[in-house]
């Protein structure tokens, strides 16, 4: 079934057992993003030390795609420099816009390649991008306020 390409096992796993869920007390930047078409909401904390992302924590409500995607992102982007995170984020965004023509590079995207199927369901791309866009916003805020430390 076409649906199985959307709901990969990895995604349902992340949905049921999300990583880094629960907001840290301290953070370099906190952002709140919503998907106004379906009401999904997340709050995301990003902390950086010496220009490296040291922690990403989050909390929120939403569908399996949005929740799994932010769980994956929070795991993947931690311990990266902002430039590295930016490159991964760009690759992920391209994958989402690929309309099912790309599989994604597992060396770069790791678990996030499981979200490749989302690109065939236009209404769900925003769900998958919610956490990543929140991260992008938080990264900009950290780098404008502290210069990435």
């Amino acid at each position, binding site marked *: *079934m*076409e649906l199985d390409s*959307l*709901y990969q096992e990895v995604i*349902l796993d992340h949905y049921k057992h999300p990583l880094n869920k629960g907001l840290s007390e301290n953070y370099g930047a906190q952002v709140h993003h919503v998907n106004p078409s379906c009401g*999904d909401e997340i709050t995301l904390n990003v902390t950086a030390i010496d220009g490296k992302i040291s922690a990403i924590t989050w909390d929120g409500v939403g*569908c399996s795609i949005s929740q799994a995607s932010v769980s994956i992102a929070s795991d993947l982007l931690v311990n990266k420099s902002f430039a590295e995170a930016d490159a991964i984020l760009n690759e992920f965004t391209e994958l989402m816009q690929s309309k099912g023509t790309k599989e994604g590079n597992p060396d770069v995207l790791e678990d996030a390649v499981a979200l490749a199927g989302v690109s065939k369901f236009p209404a769900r791309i925003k*769900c998958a991008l919610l956490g990543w866009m929140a991260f992008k916003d938080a990264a900009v805020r950290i780098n404008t306020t502290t210069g990435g430390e």
Partner: protein
Amino acid sequence: MSFDVTKVRKDFPIFERTIRDAKKLVYLDSGATSQKPLSVIEAEGNFYKFTNAAVHRGAHQLAEEATDAYEGARLKVASFLGAKEEEIVFTKNATESLNLVAYAMGNAQPGSRFALTSKDQIVVTEMEHHANLIPWQQLAARTGAELKWFEVTPEGRLDLSAINSIITENTKVVALTHQSNVLGTINPLEAITARAHEVGAVVVLDACQSVPHMPIDVKKLNVDFLAFSGHKALGPTGVGVLWSSVFEELPPFLFGGSMIETVTMTSATWAPAPRKFEAGVPNMAQAVGLGAALDYLTDIGMQSIFDHEVELTGYLINGLLQIPELSIVGPRNTDARGGSVSFTVGHIHPHDLGQYLDSQGVAVRTGHHCAWPLTRKLGVPATTRASLYLYNDESDCDALFAAITGAQKYFA
């Protein structure tokens, strides 16, 4: 049930197509927009094919015929609502109709019954669609007026217990929905219109979810304005209606061609209603299509349609309540209730549920249904909504029940 749903479905070309690998289309999203019978599609197309011209303007036969067709559509809307022709204004949709009232009130001269100041109040309800909430929030912000509202009870009904302190001597307008697009609740109007008129306020009724589904006689409703969208009533997109019995006192909202009486370089006066509120070349083909839609509904009979939907809503609610972990938001019986039924299913997020239902050919809506404050009040992040119309039958409900059960297995 006094009409044959199988026969009705044959009038709607879209039911000939299939969904997701040859599955039957189970369309349960008429609350968002209805499907269109062939007669409506042809009426709109035929306007372009045979009579297209700018209404009220040209000095030629086509313009005459176009004007007749457009004004003929107005007459159909008027008789559908039990109204007079000059009480019907065509807009682009209900959203524009409601904005028209709010902006026109904002244009009213100081001292007019429509003019608002910081001493005045605007009353809405917690179950409004954004289209009947935000225009009033904004009018309140522009004028300094206070926005008040009726709350929604846990059963999904309006709490009218504090009606006399919510609608006060300072209330200028009470805007509410006739039937909630989320809960299905049909609001009792009598107490509200009586109280509003007692204090000199006007009542604006959002009839988007009622006009397509039940017999409406505006003379009996005792409201001052009524808005609905053509596309939810089998009509084309791009045409809505605003009815009012007090148009003469209301200043215009949009200015330009066709809405004037005289114009000089520095001033203008207005044509009488409805033209005063229809600036520019209007949505002629769409209005004509709406006329055909109302003919179609009238032929079947609005009372029959309402009876059919109430019966089917009962079937839908009963079937849903058999499903473990499913919980309905809004009334769980068919008293004063229409065919929009929203629900949650255990921990399955509505967006995931909707996706699974779609894979089975079942079209529903998920999210907050443009009534975010209501969803928040209900304490759920989002819901799934099935909404019925004259072309639905028990087999559609059965397909929904089976698909929900399938989703519960899939996401277990």
